[in-house]
């Protein structure tokens, strides 16, 4: 697996630096405008959770190098494990970098100390796990098109939800109840007291979701023809 990690590093290091340069501009603007640690955590997680898999797996898709990687003396299951590890490493790097930016930018409205709490970090990892767990199997199976399929799918789902909500009418139709429950869950996630039980539950769900995602990705990748 370390060989795959090294391979991913050598193949992607320049692109990751470019992404970090883009992050510098983006987060410079963001930390000058946002003063809520919760909004910062959620938006950062979404940004990093989307950008890093896109960077690493997108390049492979662009240059059609999967066939090259699969011709190396390594099992495909190990290749997938390496991709997960490499993407997590890139995410860790991205998170660390954005926190650094929030801390060093003189015009930053974010108090880094408010973010560097166990709850914020666990919530961040949990959110990234969820984004990551959905995106990676699609990307591993369909390449860049997979991300587009997923995003278009979410857009269509949103449109469908709006139409359904309008058709069903009333404040207590099942769809609105469901959306309120999701929003409530997210609020609870961001405001819940950081008890050890809560943090452990976040960690357990994050690990379980990642493991399920890895399992699905492996099954998809082993079946792929190059």
């Amino acid at each position, binding site marked *: 697996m370390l060989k795959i990690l*090294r*391979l991913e590093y050598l193949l992607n290091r320049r692109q990751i630096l470019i992404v970090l340069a883009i992050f510098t501009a983006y987060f410079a603007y963001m930390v000058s405008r946002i003063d809520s640690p919760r909004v910062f955590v959620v938006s950062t997680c979404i940004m990093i959770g989307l950008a890093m898999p896109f960077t690493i797996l997108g390049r492979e898709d662009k240059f059609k190098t999967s*066939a090259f990687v699969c*011709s190396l*003396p*390594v099992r495909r299951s190990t290749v997938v494990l390496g991709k997960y590890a490499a993407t997590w490493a890139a995410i860790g790097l991205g998170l660390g970098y954005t926190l650094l930016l929030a801390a060093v930018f003189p015009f930053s409205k974010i108090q880094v100390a408010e973010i560097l709490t166990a709850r914020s970090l666990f919530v961040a990892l949990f959110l990234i796990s969820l984004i990551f767990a959905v995106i990676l199997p699609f990307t591993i199976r369909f390449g860049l098109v997979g991300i587009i399929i997923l995003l278009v799918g979410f857009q269509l789902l949103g449109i469908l939800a709006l139409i359904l909500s309008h058709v069903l009418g009333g404040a207590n139709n099942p769809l609105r109840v469901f959306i309120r429950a999701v929003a409530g869950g997210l609020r609870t996630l961001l405001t819940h007291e950081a008890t050890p039980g809560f943090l452990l539950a976040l960690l357990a769900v994050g690990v379980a979701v990642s493991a399920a995602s890895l399992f699905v990705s492996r099954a998809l990748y082993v079946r792929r*023809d190059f």
Partner: protein
Amino acid sequence: MDNAIEITGLRKEYKGFTLEDVTFAVPRGTIMGLIGPNGAGKTTIVKLIMNLIRRDAGEVRVFGRDNLRHEPEIKSRIGFVYDVPRFPEDLRLKTIASAVSAFYEGWDDSRFRDLLEEFRLSPRQVFKKLSHGLKMKFSLAIALAHGADLILMDEPTAGLDPVFRFELLTKLRALIQDERKTVLFSSHITSDLERVADYVTFIHQGRVVFSAAKDEILDTWGVIRAAGDGLRPEDIPGARGFRRTEHSLEVLTSDLAAARRSPLSGTVIDKASLEDIMFFIGKGNAHA
């Protein structure tokens, strides 16, 4: 003689094409050419050996081991050259080599640099800026730098100029001199195979037409040419295909000796080249 590759009953189905019941073996220390027209299934076989695509049935054994169960061990002994090199385009050659070298215990950096020098490549060159021929040379350098026992190449000479094709074929010939290394390469350029191959496997429409020693093929296959319309293909022993023009008939036979013995008047009998065989079976009228 033991075999480097043994393929038995291999099957792969695509929409509109099926590779069916492919069986052949590549003896160790030899060069085998896989020939066939475009779309015959050559690349599919190469990919199945490399497990780049999933087989539907059959078995592939490399160095006596199943290629799926022992995938990493087997691939560590294979130098693979793709028809279109699939390296990350924007990287320098030295970066690609550095990424690849960690996977092979037998990687020899000085040998790799010697090969680059021989092919007039610089480690600092960026892959995408190379011509197709130079990309193939780089792929070959990667394939040869880890002391592979089996060199597997898919259409390595396609799109190359005659000078480099000659260099490549000479290199392959030199490679098997120690009788441990084996080469399997697919090509539709029959002259390349006639120059270097010890064995030839001919694939047509997803099936093996024959797999035998090249000299045996060239000794036993022939073309009978006759003017006018007095001769019928079914009169020729071992007829495998024919081409009829307005004024003549050409018949391919896989039993040249029997054809020579039969009383055919007004005919010219020649040995068949691999190109003749590929033409008659691929484009002519195939004959049972």
